[in-house]
């Protein structure tokens, strides 16, 4: 009994932490519609700055300690304001989600900055003065600081409620969350509203981080763990809903604590480890919530945002004769590459071609069909594992295994997609992420079949493809054909219908188009293409690991598509090439390559606000017009 109470309290303390991580993200998204990938980085900055500040002023007793915590949060808030003014403000006119690219660049830069400034070692701060012991609760010792944390969550919730409901600024924020155009119409200076909200969100993230100093060490992985948690909480609660975020944090905090409390339990003669389930429990909760409540627990259906004219992509134009010729020349040039004898270029180009197909398959649903997936790596990974397992476990020849990859991926996409297409916008994206994480955790845990976290080795191509050049040409043919097919399909009635569904579901319904079914079919179809890319990747590396379907790979694909330009057809391929090539070159030549890669992406973002191809194409159109 006493242990149940204490586990409940543990859950509450965890919930407060989660709420603080997430609430700023929810605010920022609600008002600015920015999917802020750097939110975890702000949290990480908070704990690092607080660690140093506590070191500097902590000697001054309680006042110094709490002053340091607050100062760290304020510093992060200021940093957030700077980011908004210097970077994000310049790209609000870009197509939806483009800002995500800028925040991704920030993630890389902040990570390297933290490593440079604080070094690689984990930094465990001191206990909080006055709250450094434990109290007895039903005979169990419970840390005083955790009791304090339990109180912090509701207090912050209350203060935010007052701010949003009792001040003019808060009223504007709430109005903007519900209808952004209206605020513009009210004559509010939208710019400063956005800056203010971003700074507040950053401050809250910083505070969340700073308050962890007495609980956990500052370390370089915090950004990624925090961002994943933050997104889950925000989406489960309902985007933009602060009480929702609190409720979601509470549920997930408690579910986690009780999974740990249950430990290993024998159910119907099978031993189930609830402790191991914590690997993925928040994503399971998210998937269940979204399937039952497509807008989160306390969220409301998003008011249809009328796309600004700059956000609407131009109609598709059939390829000019010149384009076909250009493509042929490019194909020939690529086919001739092995003749140059540049062995490594062949290897790198193999990767680039595979990623081009992977990115194009994401672009197909994300651009024309308007379904942004945050979990596209699931199908890349399923393709790779499908191929690898058929090769290794069934002993099938490579050719059969290679066909099994896309099949497995399409099957997975069909199952997951069936649930996902019922949702829209960020909720759709997060459900794809949840399924991807669930898939990942299965692969990660199933040692006897998938090789678990170590993965599988020995996935090499057949003898006729064993030379790198032969394999490259094989990849060139398959990926080239895949890219051509995806392009062709976009010009087909099916492709048009998908764009129709993105532009106006209402009109689709009124002209007999069952858009959900087509979207499901599209999701399954691109699953097969992503699976092909994954299977080829497995054979090019000879090994598989769960990383293939982990979040960073999904993010890479998003970055490639956005970098190239989501509103163009050549964009994903160019984005894949640019990103892979940049990363390879920078990583091989510099030590602080992450920050350099981030800075490069940031420059591209500011110089090409429609993506590389998109912006160049716009320049071209303007030149033609003049």
């Amino acid at each position, binding site marked *: 009994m006493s242990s149940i109470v204490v586990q409940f309290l543990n859950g509450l303390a965890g919930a407060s932490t989660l709420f603080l991580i997430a609430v700023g993200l929810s605010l920022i998204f609600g008002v600015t519609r920015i999917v802020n990938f750097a939110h975890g980085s702000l949290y990480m900055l908070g704990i690092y700055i607080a660690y140093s500040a506590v070191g500097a002023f902590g000697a001054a007793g309680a006042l110094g300690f709490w002053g340091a915590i607050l100062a760290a949060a304020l510093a992060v808030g200021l940093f957030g304001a700077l980011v908004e003014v210097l970077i994000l403000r310049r790209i609000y006119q870009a197509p939806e989600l483009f800002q995500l690219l800028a925040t991704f660049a920030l993630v890389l830069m902040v990570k390297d900055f933290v490593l440079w400034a604080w070094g690689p070692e984990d930094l465990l701060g001191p206990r909080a003065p006055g709250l450094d012991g434990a109290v007895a609760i039903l005979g169990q010792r419970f840390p005083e600081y955790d009791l304090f944390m339990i109180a912090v969550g509701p207090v912050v919730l209350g203060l935010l409620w007052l701010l949003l409901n009792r001040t003019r600024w808060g009223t504007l924020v709430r109005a903007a969350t519900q209808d952004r155009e209206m605020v513009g119409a009210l004559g509010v200076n939208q710019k400063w509203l956005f800056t203010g909200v971003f700074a507040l969100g950053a401050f809250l993230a910083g505070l969340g981080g700073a308050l962890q100093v007495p609980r956990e060490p500052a370390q370089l992985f915090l950004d990624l763990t925090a961002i994943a948690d933050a997104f889950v909480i925000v989406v489960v609660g309902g985007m933009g809903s602060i009480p929702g975020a609190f409720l979601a944090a509470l549920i997930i905090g408690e579910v986690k604590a009780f999974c740990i409390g249950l430990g290993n339990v024998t159910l119907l003669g099978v031993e189930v480890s609830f402790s191991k389930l914590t690997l993925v429990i928040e994503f399971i909760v998210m998937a269940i919530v979204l399937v039952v409540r497509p807008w989160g627990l306390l969220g409301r259906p998003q008011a249809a945002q009328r796309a600004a004219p700059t956000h609407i992509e131009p109609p*598709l134009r059939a390829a000019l004769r010149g384009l076909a010729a250009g493509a042929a020349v490019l194909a020939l040039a690529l086919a001739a590459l092995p003749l140059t004898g540049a062995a490594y270029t062949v290897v790198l180009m193999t990767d680039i071609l595979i990623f081009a197909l992977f990115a194009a398959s994401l672009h197909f649903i994300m651009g024309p069909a308007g379904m942004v997936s945050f979990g596209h790596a699931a199908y890349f990974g399923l393709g790779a594992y499908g191929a690898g397992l058929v090769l290794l476990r069934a002993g099938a020849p490579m050719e059969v295994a290679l066909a099994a990859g896309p099949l497995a991926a399409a099957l997975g996409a069909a199952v997951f997609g069936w649930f996902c297409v019922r949702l829209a916008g960020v909720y759709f994206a997060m459900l794809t992420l949840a399924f991807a994480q669930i898939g990942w955790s299965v692969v990660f845990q199933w040692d006897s079949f998938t090789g678990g976290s170590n993965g599988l080795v020995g996935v090499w191509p057949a003898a006729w493809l064993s030379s790198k050049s032969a394999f490259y040409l094989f990849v060139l043919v398959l990926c080239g054909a895949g890219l051509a097919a995806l392009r062709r399909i976009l010009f087909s009635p099916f492709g048009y219908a998908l764009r129709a569904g993105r532009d106006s579901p209402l009109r689709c319904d009124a*002209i007999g188009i069952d858009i959900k079914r087509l979207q499901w079919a599209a999701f399954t179809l691109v699953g097969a293409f992503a699976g092909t890319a994954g299977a080829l990747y497995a054979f090019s590396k000879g090994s598989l690991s769960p990383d293939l379907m982990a979040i960073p790979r999904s993010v890479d694909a998003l970055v490639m598509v956005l970098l190239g330009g989501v509103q163009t057809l050549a964009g994903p391929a160019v984005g894949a090439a640019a990103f892979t090539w940049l990363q390879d070159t920078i990583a091989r030549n510099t030590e602080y390559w992450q920050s350099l890669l981030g800075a490069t992406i940031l420059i591209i973002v500011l110089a090409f606000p429609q993506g590389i191809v998109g912006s160049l194409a716009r320049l071209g159109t303007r030149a033609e017009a003049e």
Partner: protein
Amino acid sequence: MSAVLAVERLSKAFGGVQAVQGVSFALGEGELLAMIGPNGAGKTTCFNMVNGQLAPDSGSVRIGGVDTVGRPPREIWRMGVGRTFQITATFASMTVRENVQMALISHRRRLASLWTRAASLYRDEADRLLERVGIREQAERACSVLAYGDLKRVELAVALANEPRLLLMDEPTAGMAPKERITLMELVGEIVRERRIAVLYTEHDMDVVFGHADRVIVLDRGRLIASGTGDEVRDNPEVRQVYLGSRGRA
């Protein structure tokens, strides 16, 4: 005159508020029927039950003699029902012609085709429809750059793509300049008469109502309070009461 659309004792409540209560009316070939009423009279609810967006609590909607209650809008469309929206709903990233082609492709059930070029399908047919609504010369332009009045015409062309016997138009002239309204409604009148299409439309603009409708039905607080020609309805004391009481313009 056989009824293209027959609505019988249609009712719908939202959380205890009776939005539509026992409404019945019918509509024949080539007939233009205007549905009017003050704000909150239940026009939109009624309209959305006819087009399938809302399911009624009770009553029936028959199109060509077939009960459509419980069918989604896309199925109702396949029964020969075209629609236009109060705020135009077109495919912004497509050209004017492609918008019409999309409807034609759906009508001919070619949506699952992965290999043919959509832009080359039913091109002439689309152009003929655009010609009919008077925007043939804008066929290549993107919908996103069209003037609002022209978008209304695109919608009309799209609505005609499945050779409908019934056209449902929600405030067809909303947001248009007065002169444009008359031209558009004249065009609609011509088309429905030549193609023998039945039209049900809701409208705020009384000029559009009395100038173009063959018959008018009036809703107030969910009930049908009057039905008849424009003149009959205009002289109906109950209607006068409702409009003078709430809007002062009839």
